[in-house]
């Protein structure tokens, strides 16, 4: 390819083109793709539109409130949360958040339960079981337990019966899916049932605690319990939120490449590719190499190389196979659920075991507490063992996925499985306390290797005069994508001085991006067993539940829980997000060039 001489006119052309690419990228492609990805409410009946708008408004309100969480804390009184506090520090919630979070919890469960009506059986029952385990407030369980043991007073008995009747009514709606009412009625009935259940539970527990003189029981114990109890259940969405960051990066790059393809001439594409490569090398050398290269850093680069070296043979293999394929969302969801499920089951077993032995203790079994401790220790040991081998399990799952997909000639999926298997296998050795713990790498350690590969390919094709516009665009897209993947730091803290969300912004952004693009993925489609309306309502309920908890931990400044939440999101990014990103490199950036699906 012949490059024109650099003149004033050339520079002018270059600048105009870059401007056109930027404006075009935003105006045409970003706007179009966002519009296509958004949940389309137009074909929905009026009630469904209203519910979707309510759900979306709450989601956006929570995200906004997470961003500006300080305003809630500085503008009003704070209530102490004794159960969350420790010697390390007190945890406080803004007073105004307490009733709002409780109401949001009721609404989220109402959305979930209404969304689950009339869909396939396993979804209905999964939602109902989750509601019973994580939703029905602990105080209801306590009340029922109290009223069935010993001689309860009339108040306990009445509230327990009311609670059981309400739960029974919710269950009957789940059991009889053919009992179909207008959506407005179903939602209203469910809202009243769930709301009454929560209000009765809170009222009864508050009344009994007031008799004991504990006035802060509602704020300090009951509301936080009801709001944060489903946090185990929200882990899959937090993982997905991490993976969504990659989708954001893909979309961003795709807008850029498509805009470049439309507005830029061939030589400008090459110029942009070279400029990008030079800039990234300059940044790497100037910021990472010149100041100081520690031995730790060398080990981390080695770790990244070890994890990334598998991409070359997979890329060679993959490029010999046909391309029209993609990794289905169902597979990622399945892997996430398979990863989370054993811990969730153990968590439930621990809850049930504690309840069983507590009732034994209430019946004055002297050995109940000792037996509970023994059983709990064994369950915790089992949980830790499963957790310790998590990355090996994921590696195995990746390998199995690759094998099955290869047999089914789903080569993209097979490549995804291979990358997942290898990266998680080596990651297991990099966990703290394992032989390669010092080799534990981050994406920033991987980027120089990706850059090296892209530079080598650019030079190779340039030297042979084979750098076609399509290749140039793909390489430029990949170089840009490799750069964009660094932006998690930016996402963490774009305007730290004013907001300062720590890792929570990362989670909130991932969830928000998921909501903004849900239409294009599943919410604008329908099937007989999982109608579109149910998808939307169910998804909004789940998102609302997750955001409500994330918001609670943010406004309470609960560092430990925030770190736990953002760790899950970061793991989602690392395990599923980066695997998807590496797949894009392996497939030569094809996903960055085509129109969004």
């Amino acid at each position, binding site marked *: 390819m012949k490059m024109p001489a650099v003149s004033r006119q050339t520079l002018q052309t270059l600048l105009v083109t870059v401007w056109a690419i930027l404006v075009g990228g935003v105006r045409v492609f970003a706007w179009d793709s966002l519009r296509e990805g958004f949940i389309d409410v137009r*074909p929905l009946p009026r009630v469904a539109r209203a519910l979707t708008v309510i759900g979306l408004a709450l989601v956006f309100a929570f995200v906004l409130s997470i961003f500006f969480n300080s305003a809630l804390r*500085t503008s009003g009184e704070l209530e102490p949360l004794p159960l969350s506090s420790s010697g390390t520090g*007190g945890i406080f919630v803004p007073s105004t958040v307490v009733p709002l979070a409780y109401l949001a919890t009721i609404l989220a469960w109402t959305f979930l339960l209404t969304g689950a009506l009339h869909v396939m059986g396993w979804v209905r029952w999964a939602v109902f079981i989750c509601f019973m385990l994580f939703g029905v407030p602990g105080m209801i369980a306590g009340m029922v337990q109290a009223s069935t043991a010993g001689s309860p007073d009339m108040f306990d008995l009445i509230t327990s019966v009311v609670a059981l009747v309400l739960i029974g009514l919710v269950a009957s709606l789940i059991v009889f899916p053919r009992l179909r009412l207008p959506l407005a009625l179903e939602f209203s009935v469910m809202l009243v049932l769930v709301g009454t259940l929560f209000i009765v539970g809170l009222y009864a527990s508050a009344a009994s605690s007031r008799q004991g003189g504990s006035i802060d029981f509602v704020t300090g114990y009951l509301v936080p319990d009801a709001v944060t109890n489903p946090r185990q259940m929200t882990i899959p969405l937090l993982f997905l939120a991490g993976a969504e960051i990659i989708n954001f990066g893909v979309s961003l790059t795709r807008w850029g490449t498509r805009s470049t393809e439309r507005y830029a001439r061939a030589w400008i594409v090459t110029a942009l590719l070279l400029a990008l490569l030079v800039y990234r090398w300059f940044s790497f050398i100037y910021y990472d190499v010149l100041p100081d290269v520690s031995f730790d850093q060398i080990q981390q680069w080695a770790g990244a190389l070890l994890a990334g070296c598998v991409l070359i043979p997979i890329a060679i293999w993959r490029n010999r196979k046909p391309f029209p394929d993609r990794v289905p969302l169902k597979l990622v969801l399945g892997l996430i659920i398979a990863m989370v499920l054993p811990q969730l089951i153990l968590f439930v077993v621990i809850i049930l075991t504690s309840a069983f032995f507590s009732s034994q203790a209430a019946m004055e079994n002297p050995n109940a507490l000792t037996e509970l401790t023994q059983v709990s220790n064994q369950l915790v040991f089992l949980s830790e063992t499963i957790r310790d081998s998590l990355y090996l399990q994921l590696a195995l799952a990746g390998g199995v996925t690759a094998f099955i997909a290869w047999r089914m000639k789903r080569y993209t999926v097979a490549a995804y499985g291979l990358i997942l298997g290898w990266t998680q296998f080596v990651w297991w050795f990099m966990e703290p306390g394992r032989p390669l713990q010092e080799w534990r790498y981050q994406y920033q350690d991987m980027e120089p290797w990706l850059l090296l590969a892209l530079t080598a390919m650019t030079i190779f094709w340039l030297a042979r005069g084979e750098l076609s516009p399509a290749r140039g665009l793909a390489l430029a897209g990949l170089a840009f994508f490799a750069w964009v993947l660094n932006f998690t730091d930016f996402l963490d803290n774009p305007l730290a001085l004013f907001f*300062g969300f720590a890792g929570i912004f990362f989670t909130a952004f991932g969830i928000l991006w998921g909501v903004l693009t849900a239409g294009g993925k599943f919410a604008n489609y329908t099937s007989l067993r999982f109608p579109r309306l149910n998808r939307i309502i169910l998804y909004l309920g789940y998102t609302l539940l997750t955001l409500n908890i994330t918001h609670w931990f943010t406004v309470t400044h609960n*560092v430990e829980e925030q770190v736990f939440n953002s760790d899950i999101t970061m793991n989602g990014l690392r395990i599923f997000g980066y695997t998807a990103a590496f797949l894009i490199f392996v497939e030569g950036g094809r996903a960055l060039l085509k129109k969004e699906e």
Partner: protein
Amino acid sequence: VNSQATETKTPPFDNSLAAVILIATALAGVSAGVFLLWQQVAPKPPLAAEHYFPAVHGAAFSYRLTNADNSITYRSRNLYRDSASALASKLDTNSFGGMMNATGVDVTTTEPGVALEILSRYDILQLNDVESDARGNAVRNSALLALLINNQIAQFAVDQISITPPIPLIPSASQTVTGTLNSQIPYTMSQEILEQGRYTTALGEFGDCILVGSALTINEQVTTSRTRYCAGVGEVADETTDANGTRHSEIVAASVGDFVRGSSPVVPKTDENASLQRIFPEELQGNVVRVLDYKEPPESRGITTNVLPLDGTLLYGTASGALVAFDRAGERELWRFQTGDSIFSTPVVSNGIAYFASADKKFYAVRVSDGAFVWAFPMQDVATASPAARGDTVYVASEDRHVYALDADTGLLRWQFQSGSPFVAAPVLDGEQLIVSNDDGGVFALNAATGAVNWDFAAEKAITGAVQVQAGVVYVGSFDQHVYALNAESGEMLWSQTVLDNVAEPVLVRGERVYVGLYEEVVALDTRSGASIWRYDNANSVYGAPILLGDQVWILGSGNLIALDASTGKVVQDVPTSDSGVFTGISSDGNEIYAGFFDGQLLSFAGGAE
């Protein structure tokens, strides 16, 4: 089959406005239910009588008194507010009788449960006054009890003397009340509002004030007073005349709700200084045993700070918001200063003044000899970290993302530094630097005199434990499961070491060892390289930062106090503590180890038993 679809078979009702109204009604009903329920525990709106006398829990005032003999004294006033049912059991016989008369409850005919139910509808206000001379010597302490009842604040007891019927603090109109003191001595009280308007004090001009004139006659002795109350503040000036002459008082400092202004002179300054120390040269001799087992009253709702030892006095904060001074030898409470909310910030003492923060979003200075209020500084959020103090400056790191440097005598702001994240870890002074760390993993070395940033460092995740500095090296642990060693002059990282869990507590550094307390283990690292020296793995949890006494590393486990050999990590002592739930970590004065618990238990352990 997935396909882009338009919905079919929509029931007509779902397209009607009635359906939307139905949903809106259900939503409004449930919302109303939640908010009505919340109203029962939500902060109560103030009574009309609180306009000129805000009955704010934890409010504090300081008045300058000019006595009849022209001597100057200072009165510190501290307000405690709680439900009458919670305080009933704490009152002396006379005060209890006064309260029962005021509420109309006849204890001889009313069942205890019903009586408590009636009392729980009312709040009691306790005004504790501490008066001292210009040298800080105690002159007089007094306590006034009032009930918030019938939209009035009615005084029913003073210094264990009951007043029947109770006298309103602020009269709604001119009135005369007659009754008895301790049901025996007759009294007459005449009150009227003399004027209303602006009033200027040392704290500035107030626009909405009233002047209340009153005359109290007891045994033909008349005491008259003219008291000025201002909206949002309360009493700002008073002139009382009795047989001894006339006494004037004027407000010099106040902390009531959002109004925080002024300071009381710190006279005299003492050389009492204390901050939480974690390293002591001598180990406890012999087998360590429990030597103190004290329980805070239930209304304290637990001890929430480390226990700070100070020359035989133990200082600690409670969940109810009180800073308590406890006489270790006499095993009794010396004084209690009430703030508006829980105290999680372990106090430091500098020149005889205790500095600490409360969850009422204020930072306080209180005299350690008698708990007298000196000044308060308003923040935008809570501070749960212990402050740092040196010379005439005190430093506090707040969850409002600011570090404040305040004048130790007046509480006036000298400089402030803002970061992007809340500060939970305590600030640490090292030479001319103040080193602070935040929730986002940032470590900032600030010029202690100006607040300018000398250097900064970013860990991957939150830092909640204060940094430790030794021989020009800053050691800090983070939630990113690393311990870092940084050059104290430049912030350059010297080494980092991975550990198996989040580091939430401050590390402990002495000689060539860094001791790190994790969730279930303690590890010792080499200060030069970060290399792991030993690791103690506890089957159960260990909490709080370790402390070092001689060659023993002490750490609190769940239900036991454990001593490890500092060189090997082997357990050398295992002392049972308590089944209490959460504790606030351990502290020591070199002779005893102190531990406070969230259930109010205060334990102390000492060596000696062979």
